[in-house]
């Protein structure tokens, strides 16, 4: 642990890091900060599993140098719930069963929350386009898209939104 001092806020807590010039944000979060919710999926910015918010913007923490965080605000999956109240995106992911193995989920949720803060009322196309950098191999994205649209609806008092839990039906008879 040598060299440069970085003063940063992590999930609203002021932190001071001592990092090497080539330390990656992903590794500092998962290591020193013990915030293991953010995942290593590829290490070269191709899968989105490492997505966190820096000053409200989604970044790939596996490609971000820790030294570039000086004076900035980082929010990880551990920090988007508010005092025990889940973020609307998290709630919707649960209601819409938008996760299976869950490994892409933190990055997907962070990216989705960034979308909704930029575009409060996205279309389905907007959602699919915004999330294209977050790969998922289990869900086929369908439930994720439903969840993000449902989360957007939560903020909109007039919307009726998809009732995710009632979404699926089965048939016993021919």
């Amino acid at each position, binding site marked *: 642990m040598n060299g440069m001092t970085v003063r940063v806020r992590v999930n609203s807590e002021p932190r001071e890091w001592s990092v090497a010039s080539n330390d990656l944000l992903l590794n500092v979060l998962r290591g020193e900060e013990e915030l293991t919710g953010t995942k290593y999926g590829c290490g070269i910015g191709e899968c989105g599993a490492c997505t966190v918010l820096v000053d409200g913007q989604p970044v790939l923490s596996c490609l971000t140098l820790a030294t570039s965080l000086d004076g900035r605000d980082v929010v990880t999956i551990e920090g988007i719930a508010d005092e025990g109240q889940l973020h609307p995106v998290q709630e919707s992911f649960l209601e819409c069963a938008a996760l299976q193995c869950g490994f892409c989920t933190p990055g997907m949720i962070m990216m989705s929350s960034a979308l909704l803060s930029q575009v409060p009322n996205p279309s389905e196309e907007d959602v699919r386009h915004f999330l294209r950098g977050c790969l998922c191999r289990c869900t086929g994205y369908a439930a994720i898209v439903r969840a993000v649209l449902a989360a957007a609806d939560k903020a909109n008092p007039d919307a009726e939104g998809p009732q995710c839990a009632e979404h699926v039906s*089965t048939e016993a008879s021919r």
Partner: protein
Amino acid sequence: MTDTIPTGKAVTRDALRQVGRPLVRTDAVGKAVGKTMYVGDHVMQGMLHARVLRSPIASARLTRLDVSKARALDRVACVLTADDLERPLIAVDIPGQTGRARLETDQQVLVRDRVRYHGEPLALIAAETVEIAEEAMRLIEFDLEPIPGVYNPEDALQPGAPIVQGTDNVVAAQKIVKGDIEKGFREADRIIENTFQTQFVEHAFLEPEVGLGWVDENNIINLRASTQVIENFRFIADAIGVPHNRVRVRASLVGGGFGGKEDVTMECYIALLVKHTGRPIRLEFTREDSLMGHGKRHPFTMTYRTGVKADGTITALEVRLIADAGAYVFLSPYVLLYAAIAAPGPYRVDNLLIDGRAVATNNMYTSAFRGFGAAQAAVAYEQQMDEIAMELGIDRIELRRRNYLRSGDTISSNYPIESAVWTEECVDRAWAALGEPTEATGHLRIGRGVAAYQQSYGRITYLHDTSQAWVGVEIDGSVTVRSGVTDIGAGQVSALGQIAAEVLGVDLDDVAIYNSDSAVTPLAGTTTATRALYMTGNAVKVAAEALRGRLIERAAKSLGVASDGIDIADGTVFAIDDPGISMPFHELVKLSAADGIHCSELAIFRAPFSDGLDPETGEGQVHPDYVFGAHAIEVAVDVETGEVSILKSVAAHDVGRAINPTAVEGQIEGGAAQGQGFALSEEMIYEEGRLITPSFSEYLIPTSMDVPKVESIILESGTGLGPFGAKGIGEPALTPVAPAIANAVTDAIGVRVKELPITPEKIVAALHAEPT
């Protein structure tokens, strides 16, 4: 301990309280808040970090390997080569099964003198940090003398071809003979022949393989491993030379598998480093390691020769299958068997000859992947059906209707299907749900395709598969389930909780499930082969029912009502005819415990056991049962760019019983995406055995912009062998998708690309090759 076939009174849909409800899975909240501890999230004091040095070429002799500089580097704890291993070969038997020998060729843990595939491990390094381990890797000096290899099965089968290992490049052969093939062809009015080709496919689970190993205070080698099979503790123990009961594997929740974490991947490396250093070892594959470090889907070349009458009825089918087994055998014999069994598809074929071979090459070894050979066969048989329809001028769905297998008919190995076969309903429903065709505009052509399928659930019956689960009630009325089953994302664990809750009359929230610990949870077998719900769900049901029976008997004494007049629901035990006669469930448990009644049950569920297949004809039972269904697709193909857009996607599957309908839907939607990649964009490309697609920017899996909405029609015949009549959905969700897409593209452009993936380049080339 019970080992009976589950009975329990037949339940109607309305009577189920937990099963069939779209409950939030027990593992979901932790995953949504980032609290779930995957293997890679665990750290231990003093842990070392490991790296694997891999061969940069596919076929070579290792003439020199000098690790001295690496060993001398400061803060490097250990460097291992083949010379350091007591047991340099690992006999990787069928994962998780009960010690039956199989035809296979041993795999090297580390290369001694012969490299057989690109990426084969040469050395293991453990150091204080990942950076130091990587620096040590760079200090290892080695010389590789290239030797001629073979890079496709056709070349490998030529006389005089370089032999990959052993004496022969044919590592497995499978023949199935039914009826009289010559007679069948004589009866045909037309004979139609086509050859279809599939590619190397990568699982691309989001969580790369990772493990954390250590020796504990009892001298037990512990491993947290991202695996589908905790039973691999046996092979790990063999690799490091300790008794099986001294290796403990825990899998926790796994970030995707799809068959790619079925074989041993990094576990032996970790165990060896633990044994040599005495310290905790963490090995996390880089994504490149992962792409190079586990077996891929077998490429298949499938030649179909079908004899049909003028009305399309199939009179004869001859199939030749060649699979690329890659450098080591792994599960090739079984993938080939599944492909051979599935080869005719869900159709009645009385005269059949299937001749399959799995052939070794110096490509990456190939092994398990969702569908397991049957998915590749579907790519062939469903495209062949469309080709036959088009040649005969018969509607594609009508042609299928004239040939469907029905319940009671026999499959390729002459064994009857006893469960419901709802192929016709599924095809008709999926096709109808496509609705009105989209109008073509500009240089877009619209096309539709459907594919039906037959996919097994449960493992090969001559492997004598079993699964165990323990169910207990605590004296406060809460319920505990213990089972080794690994959850690789499909909700395998939560489904068990739903079943226990259903039987014991509690809510899913009242059930705690402890899973995936080879030392402590009863072994459930692999999470593979669409077997977890069938096998372990049944084990849980059997255990819970036995326990319920004992508790109800005790309740009968207290309530003064006969046992068959008592039910349990919402934490209360009550007389069905007079619910006022009741007691709290937890009180019943306390009374039972005080009476010395056993308040838990360990059950083993056995799949049907069969003997091996007839060696000449392949006749016999192969699987417990099969799932039937279909997928329908509408595409738009841009004839200028070759790009394919999926406009509509409809799945219809008879899953027997949907324990959790949203979980079933999730599997269907995920399978649709994976099938789309298989059909259109995914290919692991090996040039002279060298992988040239070692990242996600070169190996293209579908993104949120590529995969459309999928409509899921979930049918429940209730005729499955699983709990409450369930069959399965894990592999079936994938199997019909790629052929449906291939059929839709062909319908759109009027010419068939017979090699997957159907890339834009191939489409444009096919269009330009057409005579104008």
